[in-house]
């Protein structure tokens, strides 16, 4: 008797849940820093997600014939521990899609936790859409079926960068400098090995790490770089370490290129201003300024109208939203994430706002293969500039389908 009652109750609850799911939005949990020192980056990313969901999905009729996307923000204070708590809260709310990007440390913690959760709870599985964490391990030894990366990883970016450097006969001496932690070390070792393979004649005249966030004045480092006779500099620095190092090098009269990963937006573009023109380069995926497609220009204008102080600094966010919508439509369901993941796996995406070339979600490791560009910091007309400064990033070199040839050590286990 008791068991029948339970069964009936179960059926009733399941029925309610099913009808509820039809009317409810597809919720996407945004787990990133919304307070603390990285709040500016996190908040700007959240705005880009909300805007993309609104413009690219909801205003175009939603998915599955009328269901809207909804971004639910969770503040992780950029701490892996806090992120795991927020992940549990999101799962308890019935959310099936997790987006996160700032810090590979957080992404590593999330991908492990999600893998375990999905193994133990087949009824409430979630997908992890990583839009910015670039640690190569996430799509190599630590890869899993539930994780998808939409940014080019650090090795792919370095591969593209060294392709361009290899074609420049003026560069004979290279100086590599970075922050003393895992990412700085990863950039340095990738630079040394890839330059060694592509241009063995380039001499590495400096390869050093400085304390992260502790250097008050980068002038002595700049003097050293000049004294070494370097023709170019590679750095993975970000935040005030990027600005301090870059300004010191430029102030010291260095005229060669400074190849960077993160020397833009969040006030950095404005602070470099005129001084960075001609020397500052940046490797990233994304669009030109202004973007080639007219609809992308409209999109960017509309974003700046809504968030005058914001930047479209992570253009891949629109790819995440559009590709997820496509995958849900193709799978015919938003609740069965295995079907959605199968649709995302190997997907060819032609409609990116920022690129005329197709992008592919590589099936073997869930790394999005896309064009990567070397940008130059230069004058850009509003509203396509950054920090409303009149300066921004323009294409200088492009590598089509960057990293396609880079092997992966991923051994994907599919459910």
């Amino acid at each position, binding site marked *: 008797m008791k068991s029948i009652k339970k069964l009936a109750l179960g059926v009733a609850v399941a029925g309610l849940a099913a009808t509820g799911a039809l009317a409810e939005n597809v919720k996407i949990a945004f787990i990133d820093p919304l307070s603390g020192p990285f709040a500016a980056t996190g908040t700007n990313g959240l705005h880009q997600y909300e805007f993309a969901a609104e413009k690219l999905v909801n205003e175009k009729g939603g998915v599955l014939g009328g269901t809207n996307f909804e971004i639910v923000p969770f503040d992780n204070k950029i701490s892996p521990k806090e992120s795991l708590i927020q992940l549990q809260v999101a799962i308890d709310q019935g959310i099936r899609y997790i987006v996160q990007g700032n810090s590979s440390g957080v992404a590593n913690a999330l991908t492990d936790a999600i893998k375990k959760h999905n193994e133990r709870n087949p009824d409430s599985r979630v997908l992890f859409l990583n839009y910015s964490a670039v640690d190569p391990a996430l799509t190599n030894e630590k890869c899993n079926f539930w994780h998808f990366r939409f940014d080019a990883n650090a090795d792919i970016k370095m591969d593209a960068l060294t392709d361009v450097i290899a074609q420049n006969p003026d560069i004979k001496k290279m100086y590599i400098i970075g922050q003393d932690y895992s990412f700085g070390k990863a950039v340095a070792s990738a630079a040394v090995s890839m330059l060694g393979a592509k241009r063995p004649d380039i001499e590495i005249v400096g390869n050093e790490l400085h304390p992260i966030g502790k*250097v*008050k*004045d980068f002038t002595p480092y700049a003097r050293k770089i*000049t*004294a070494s006779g370097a023709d170019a500099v590679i750095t993975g620095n970000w935040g005030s370490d990027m*600005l*301090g190092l870059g*300004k010191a090098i430029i102030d010291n009269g260095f005229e060669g290129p400074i190849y960077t990963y993160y020397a833009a937006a969040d*006030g950095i573009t404005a602070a470099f201003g005129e001084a960075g023109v001609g020397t500052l380069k940046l490797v990233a995926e994304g669009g030109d300024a202004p973007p080639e497609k007219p609809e992308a220009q409209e999109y960017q204008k509309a974003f700046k109208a809504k968030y005058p102080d914001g930047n479209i600094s992570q253009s891949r966010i629109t790819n995440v939203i559009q590709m997820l919508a496509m995958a849900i439509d193709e799978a015919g369901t938003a609740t069965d994430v295995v079907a959605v993941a199968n649709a995302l796996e190997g997907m060819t995406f032609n409609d990116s706002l920022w690129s005329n070339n197709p992008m592919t979600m590589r099936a073997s490791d869930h790394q999005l293969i896309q064009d990567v560009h070397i940008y130059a910091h230069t004058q850009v007309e509003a509203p396509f500039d950054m*920090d409303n400064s009149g300066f921004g990033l323009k294409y200088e070199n492009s590598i089509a389908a960057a990293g396609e040839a880079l092997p992966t050590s991923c051994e994907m286990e599919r459910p």
Partner: protein
Amino acid sequence: MSLFIVNILDGFVTGLLLFMLCSGLTLIFSMMGVLNFAHASFYMLGAYFAYQISLLTGFWVGLIVAPVIVGVIGAFIERYGLRRVHKYGHVPELIFTFGLALLIEEIVQFFWGKSQMAYEAPEILDFAAFSIAGNTFPAYKVFMIFVALGIFLVLLYILTKTRVGMTIQAALSYPETVQNLGHNVPLVFMGVFGVGTAMAGLAGVIAGPVLGTFPGMAVLLGSIVFVTIVIGGLGSLWGALAASLIIGWLQTFAASYNVRMEDILTGLGFTKPEPIWDSAWQDLWTLTLPQIGPILPYLLMIIVLVVRPQGLFGKRET
């Protein structure tokens, strides 16, 4: 050799900048016994005020006005905050200035956000004064040297040659006696606090374009200024100058010469364990001088405290 000369000059600039922060702090500390944790926050306020003013009227007005505003704010905080807390003893004072530092950082983030500000050196100084072996020395740094030296001379004159200076000097060592002689010691305290914070503000105004104007700038310099005044000796202007220059040179030279622990240890006759990444001594063997540069001033402070507790130029035991 040319790099050596360039480093001497760079260290000189860093040291003088540090001196502008320390000179105010050392006077405040020795006179009132207050460890002003918020001192570097006034430095940050100076940079932000000057940035805001420079948007409206250009750099030069900001150079004059911003330190004055910071000094007035400092004097008000002494009169209506610190003086009230003073009667409860040193610990509440300490907590008060600590809270003040946190408050100022939050206020700055509230009004200006967390991003870097595009605070620039004036265009008229935006050229290379001279260059040594390809290393340019910006005219702005020459300007910084002159401002800091000017401040030092003015302070030295006021403290040693004027009546106000005599009273301050006397109040440094024997505040009760000076009070009993009929001098208004609380007013002197307020004035010293105001001038000290104004100097920190001025340091911020001229350092902002070079070292960056962002919410973390106070924390970055906060601890080093205490180290400097302890090394120099409390209340001594000459001590503050000497310690600032020593630390400036120490940090500059440490950052620019890649002396490797490996070479030193090999020179001493040790053999490098192979493979190094499996060895328990990996961290020691791979260490370089630039990596340990930031801790050298603290090491120096400990040595000074052991050998000469009153500091290099300090006159009294504390």
